[in-house]
């Protein structure tokens, strides 16, 4: 995975609470293979009307925010379904960072697996950032993961992120490679556990017991 350290880019305000992963990518697009690219289906039903035409009033469809790489969102951003394709859609569109007062846990975990930063700010700071972006469309923010800061013109805001997710993003870790170094400890755990919890293994399910 690529590393995330610092990002300076146009930020788009999406002032919607509980913007769930069903909005980020509607379920009917979940059949797409990863290679298909998910940029087009990001926020599909909010970006496009029934006839497939762009809704001009939707922020990401406005010329100033079309190339945004940062989103400032509302409370509980990314709640709901565990679909990682919600993050694929953001990433493929070019979004590297979402700033919001709170995030769905599974979404935030998925984001950290795909080099997308989820930055948690206070309600007041979110409102202030949102207002600044609306007042000056096209405004750039600088998000610094090492310093845990967001620069907005002359103001600097702090943000929080689960330290584990921060480390993963800063290092661009590949979990599977990391876990490989624990192979012996896993094997030892498994051997002990069989004695400790003999009931934990499932009885054979290969035969139909109905």
């Amino acid at each position, binding site marked *: 995975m690529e590393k995330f350290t610092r990002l300076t880019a146009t930020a788009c305000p999406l*002032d*919607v*609470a*509980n913007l*769930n992963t*069903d*909005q980020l990518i*509607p*379920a*009917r697009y*979940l*059949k797409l*293979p*990863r290679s298909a690219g998910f940029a087009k289906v990001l926020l599909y*039903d909010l970006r496009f009307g*029934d006839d497939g035409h762009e809704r001009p009033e939707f922020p990401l469809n406005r010329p100033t925010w079309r190339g945004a790489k940062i989103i400032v969102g509302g*409370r*509980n951003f990314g*709640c*709901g*379904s*565990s*679909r*990682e*394709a919600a*993050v694929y859609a953001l990433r493929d569109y070019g979004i590297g960072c979402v700033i919001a007062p*709170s*995030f*769905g*846990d*599974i979404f935030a*975990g*998925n984001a950290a*697996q795909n080099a997308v930063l989820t930055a948690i700010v206070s309600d007041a700071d979110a409102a202030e950032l949102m207002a600044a972006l609306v007042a000056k469309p096209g405004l750039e923010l600088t998000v610094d993961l090492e310093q845990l800061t967001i620069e907005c013109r002359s103001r600097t805001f702090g943000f929080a992120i*689960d*330290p*584990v997710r921060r*480390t993963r993003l800063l290092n661009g870790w590949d*979990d*599977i490679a*990391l*876990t490989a170094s*624990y192979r012996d*400890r*896993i094997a030892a*755990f498994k051997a002990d*556990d069989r004695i*400790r*919890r*003999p*009931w*934990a*293994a*499932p*009885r054979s*399910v*290969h035969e*139909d*017991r*109905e």
Partner: protein
Amino acid sequence: MDEERTLLDKVWAAHEIARREDGESLLWVDRHFVHEGSFHAFSRLAERGANVAEPGLTFGVADHYVPTRGVRRDITNPEIAHMVRQLEENLAKHGIVLFGLGDPRQGIVHVVGPEQGLTLPGLIIVCGDSHTSTHGALGACAFGIGASQVAHVLMTQTIWQRKPGRMRVTVHGEAAVGVAAKDIVLAIIARIGADGATGHALEFAGSAIRDLSIEGRLTLCNMAIEAGARCGMVAPDEKTFAWLKGRPCAPEGVEFERAVEDWSALATDGGAPFDLDVYLDAATIAPIVTWGTSPEDALPIDASVPDPTRETDMARAKYLRDALDYMGIAPGSRLTEIVIDRVFIGSCTNSRIEDLRAAAAVLAGRTSKVPGLVSAGSARIKRQAEEEGLDRIFRDAGLEWGGPGCSMCVGINGDIVPPGERCASTTNRNFRGRQGPGARTHLMSPAMVAAAAVTGHLTDVRPFLSGRKV
């Protein structure tokens, strides 16, 4: 160590292989469920030429895309047929058991796991589906994960996780007749919010929770994710043990006795600390419906929907306006004035035998004013319902009796609510477009859906229960 520990603490400690300095733990996974949507993870394995570490602890279920109507093996939509076939091929390749289409054990993954006795107290269970929280009803620590983590679990049978915070919701007192587990959990979500439990494992406790059947507890923990919780949990008790005994994959004989001994020690110790504690009185909970586009938008059936013009917080007023506008409801309307177009009874939230019985108790001898679909949670539940004659009650009322699957909860198998239509639904998410583009969803209990079917509008089920065995 003699400090008092919570249920979560005990299950976590029993699975911790290692803990890094940054606080993340490497946990052993006892059960891993996969479904059609897990294909991204299998692709990841194929790219790396990797194998599944523990095929015997991995179980596949065809549920998200399977048809519920007609000859189910005969999928006409080629894209949907591909999704089901892809699962079959991936599982066959890796030697993983599949509860597939046509298998007498097939059903919704969160119904099948407990039903087959694969879900047990004290286990860590993961699945690439947010409603994996359901399995916590039996005292497991169960949570949904994304595709990257599914791939990691497939390859290592372990998962990196930071231990969540400890939150407890205690519901004391006794729930009134007509108030179901669904009402209790919607009341909790309305109280704490759709992100009220974010970052926490949510343990449900108190007399009203102990009084719930296992089916009720499964409904409760299913919706824990709708409060943002990492997982929902109920301490296992005698009810849990009795419910599990004799299930096909559960331990048997002396092994079962040994297990019960271990499981009995799992309950939270008196005085164990929680980071957050919330209390509710079950006696104050009435049947509840949602009116908006988040499960937190829930109110007792005798209430009226909010009026944005009376809201002083501008952001909140905008949220209310947007939600009411999408739902096509006039501000301030009484909930009982809301006319519905169809009903759906099913999903991992409310498709178990007790849910079907509760709906049938209301519908018996009555007719639905609107069309609707009833989808049992598993083939096994479907057979049991048919033995009890419940299918006839639904059919006689004018509803369709379908096969098991995720169906109209998520709409990806083709069972959708048409654009602009309003559905009274036993499902878990009233998100915009969840049941199909432009669909309007009101969440409620199975009995409340049945009452809405009979009257054609949202209504209090309680008058429909008089003189009936519920």
